[in-house]
């Protein structure tokens, strides 16, 4: 089986299986194109990823490998155990998403760049969770934003959106 090497922006290499790489749609389509043009090849394929740093890439690959393992378990196990397995997966994903907002941001960017739909779903969920139920100031603090609205603008927005604020 062919190995794929993903190279982070600092030059660190990560070897992953084709099965796990197929979760990254960007890599998967690259692989397909190559196979269509050159046919089967046993040399490892090196994919440089200039936008992704080493630790984020590690995290993404951890997700791919783990999801792959869960998928295999899902198809192998009988229907009776499916519910238990789903719970297990959810617990793992909860654990996986225990990251700082900064890391989460980079994870989203990497998931978007590598096009991993399931990871992207998970990340957008986590991102929304970090906005939910907070005050504007808390959201600003969480995402490191500077207030860019003048007090007059803020007052104007409050006035026009009164319905949402009470």
């Amino acid at each position, binding site marked *: 089986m062919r190995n794929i090497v993903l190279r982070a922006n*600092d030059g660190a290499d990560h070897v992953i299986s084709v099965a796990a790489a197929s979760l990254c749609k960007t890599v998967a389509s690259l692989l397909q194109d190559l196979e269509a043009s050159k046919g089967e090849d046993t040399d490892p394929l090196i994919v440089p990823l200039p936008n992704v740093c080493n630790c984020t890439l590690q995290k993404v690959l951890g997700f791919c490998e783990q999801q792959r393992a869960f998928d295999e378990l899902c198809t192998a196990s009988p229907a009776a155990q499916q519910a238990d397995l789903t719970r297990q997966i959810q617990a793992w994903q909860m654990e996986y998403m225990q990251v700082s907002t900064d890391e989460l*941001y980079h994870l*989203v*960017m990497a998931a978007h760049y590598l096009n991993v739909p399931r990871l992207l779903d998970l990340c957008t969920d986590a991102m929304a969770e970090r906005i939910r139920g907070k005050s504007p100031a808390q*959201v600003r603090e969480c995402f490191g934003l500077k207030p860019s609205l003048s007090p007059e*603008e803020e007052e104007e927005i409050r006035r026009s*959106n009164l319905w949402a604020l009470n």
Partner: protein
Amino acid sequence: MAATDLMGALRGMLGLDVSSAQDQNSTSYTSDIGALTTEGRQRMDILGLPDGVMLSVLDRLNPRELVSTCCLVSQGLRDAAISNDLWRNKFVDLPEEFRDLIESRRLYPWLWHALYQTNLLSNVNWGNIIGNRNWLMQSSGWRVTLHGGHGWSAESPPAAIPALEVKPLPRLDAAPINTAGALASSYMWCEVMQAVDLHTELQKRRMSSRDADSYLDGGAELTFSIWYGGRGDCRSRAHIMVVLDSGRDALVPYTGRHDFPWERTAITHWDSGMLRLDPQDNNWKLATHTFRGYPAGIRRAIIVLKGKDEPWWAGHYGAKFAAPELHFGPCRWPAQAAAAAAEEGSTSA
């Protein structure tokens, strides 16, 4: 002397200019370095997220949160939170021309509130009519057609039943209502009704007459919900009916001595059937119905509420109603609605 002063001042200004330019350079330089963290990656900037990702993040938030929180965070997040792309899909069956108008003015959040979060019924908090014996005579929207036994009684807080922890849905541009008062029935059938002109209500929501016609004819979702309950010491019954008709006929001068003649004009209707309330189950229940895909031509909704007690006790021991609401869009209480639907299914089966 004056000339050298001028030169000096000029030089000073130039010098200042140069040094400020340097300042700018150096700050931009350091901020460039600051942008790279130790792991050699860019600084987080949530507004730099790709549009598609940003949309799916915001799409997971409740519309109210989008407006009350995201709008006040920063200019960039505000633009994203009220963008047409985000809101367009929260609406079904809006007339095309009206959609254009809304998009050009970025009114989607307001419209979401006006259609789905405001009450088409008026005077829904019965608690505030206590002590006003003539409330039925006033143009309160409600019309009492049966005042059986000792008649309807307004209660706030409701007697012999836990308080209803629900904020009644206010009308458009009205102040929020924080407590739900109740209307309690007596030992003979009590009945109260209200007719709502849907066409007028839509025009109050900035639709032109033609837009309102096409919105209603498009079969927009319309939900009626009401909480009902019985006392902990007496069996009672409730009956709820919602009739949708063309509104062309004036409402018949109906006194409630016979059944409400809804068949005459109804295009579609919902009948709760006889709801029997057990003292054991001494709490509020939700009765709700969402009209979908109804035939064209509906312009008016008529709500009819009936209640009485079972053992014919003097006083107001009959079924109680609270927090009625009629609005477009799906039910605000999906969990309770599902439970009510399941119960209805089991009793009919």
